[in-house]
């Protein structure tokens, strides 16, 4: 299929992941950006302020004094009807946390790029998913990109997903710190006008019926149609105001899939069905499930193993929130052993993806044996040899039928 914008009409550029998302935000007609720099997200803020300084965008850039303020400012902007964007990582995300819950409960379609980085202590600037997993219950849509191209594509898609009338939820786009944020890769970018057409121009707030105004009004702070946003609810209404958040989440998967297809028609690029990017899973005996940039390394190894005749597969979870339970169950139900690689650990429990996938497979007769690998904390590199070790161990589990230790640490020194 030839995309609506063929490759020779797209802009080829060598950029790192941070720059890619900054360009995406630039093209997405963002009204307000409020951000505070933190490694490894810094380049996004630098690049975007460059666009502002050069007069390349009309965006109001608010250089705030902290991430708490950054999130507060974009919440305010979005509540006023603006398309708003911010980016952070690690401790910055931790400082945003209480406001993340507010953004989603107010149903504000913000986009946040997280350049995934470990949480202190010890202080560390490198990649893991502890920061993203800290916000997994905050009511945000969470998507993980595998490479720089996907980071660009997903940031644009994120606005469309967030602003879908059925969704109206904030979206976090995750890219692995340094591994993607600082790695130069060749990508294709769409011309500005194509991105703007894809998003339907500037943000249009959705309407809702407000009794005391006696009419439908746009959900935004507008003096001519005054509304209060998020005031006190006691046990009389709080619960009723939370259920719609859960219901909106149920709509997200279909919207992500549709946007993935629309993007494919436009650009020629798509990522699995949008929620899961599976490789070789259909007839696989053993499968590794993984998020983010490591998926590429796992697929690289899996392709080699396939050449040796090993029936291996890779299940890349692209959409982590809402979690695609049905899709995961359908893809994994016939598999014999599933190794779940998590770049974060819920101390006292398992890795977050392991818990989700276990839930997805709950109640299936002869459900796959499962083992959880915690890997890459604090940026520990994952060479192909470690991935091979995982596949070898999964094969052993398949042969013996014994899982043994369910929680394993990959690439860590013992003794």
């Amino acid at each position, binding site marked *: 299929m030839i995309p609506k914008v063929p490759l020779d009409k797209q802009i080829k550029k060598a950029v790192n992941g941070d720059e890619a998302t900054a360009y995406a935000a630039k093209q997405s007609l963002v009204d307000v950006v409020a951000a505070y720099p933190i490694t490894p997200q810094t380049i996004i803020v630098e690049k975007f302020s460059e666009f502002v300084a050069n007069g390349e965008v009309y965006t109001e850039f608010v250089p705030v004094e902290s991430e708490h303020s950054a999130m507060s400012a974009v919440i305010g902007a979005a509540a006023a009807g603006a398309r708003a964007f911010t980016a952070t990582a690690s401790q910055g995300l931790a400082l945003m946390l209480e406001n993340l819950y507010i953004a989603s409960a107010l149903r504000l379609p913000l986009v946040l790029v997280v350049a995934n980085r470990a949480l202190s202590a010890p202080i560390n600037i490198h990649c893991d998913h502890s920061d993203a997993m800290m916000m997994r219950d905050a009511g945000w849509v969470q998507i993980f990109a595998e490479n720089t191209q996907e980071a660009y594509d997903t940031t644009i898609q994120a606005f469309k997903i967030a602003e879908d009338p059925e969704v109206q939820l904030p979206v976090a786009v995750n890219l692995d710190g340094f591994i993607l944020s600082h790695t130069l890769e060749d990508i294709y970018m769409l011309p500005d006008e194509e991105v703007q057409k894809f998003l339907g121009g500037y943000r249009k707030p959705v309407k809702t019926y407000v009794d005391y105004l006696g009419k439908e009004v746009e959900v935004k702070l507008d003096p001519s149609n005054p509304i209060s946003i*998020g005031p006190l609810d006691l046990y009389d209404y709080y619960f*009723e105001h939370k*259920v719609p958040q859960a219901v909106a989440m149920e709509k997200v998967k279909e919207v992500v899939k549709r946007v993935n297809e629309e993007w494919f028609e436009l650009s020629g690029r798509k990522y699995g069905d949008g929620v899961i990017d599976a490789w070789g899973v259909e007839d696989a005996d053993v499968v590794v499930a993984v998020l983010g940039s490591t998926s590429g390394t796992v697929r690289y190894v899996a392709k080699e193993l396939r050449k040796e005749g090993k029936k291996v597969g890779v299940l890349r979870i692209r959409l982590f929130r809402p979690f695609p339970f049905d899709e995961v169950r359908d893809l994994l139900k016939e598999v014999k052993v599933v190794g779940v690689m998590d770049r974060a650990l819920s101390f006292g429990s398992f890795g977050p993806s392991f818990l989700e996938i276990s839930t997805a497979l709950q109640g299936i007769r002869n459900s796959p044996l499962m083992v959880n690998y915690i890997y890459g904390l604090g940026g520990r590199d994952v060479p192909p040899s470690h991935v091979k070790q995982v596949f070898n161990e999964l094969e052993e589990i398949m042969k013996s039928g014994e899982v043994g230790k369910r929680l394993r640490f990959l690439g860590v020194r013992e003794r």
Partner: protein
Amino acid sequence: MGDKSSVKEPRGWKSLPLGALPYRLSLDYKTGDWRALKPVIDYGKCVNCMLCWLYCPDSAILWDGKKVFMNYDYCKGCGICSDVCPTKAIKMVPEGE
């Protein structure tokens, strides 16, 4: 303004507006019954400086064009008006007296 019937029968989540918006105005919540002390204006002392009108945190002091007056439906009896009055024209008296 205000859907009185729904006060008796609270709404379910399906009929609430989007995004944590309350469907009723705060005007429906008459907070005057929280009051223990009631502000009373002595118009003989009042000089129409309107400081009480400015300071009232509940906008329960109104101006009719000639004088200020209390809207006891919303006055919680906090006493700020009495405190800021430069001529001591507002007294806080126990409710029911």
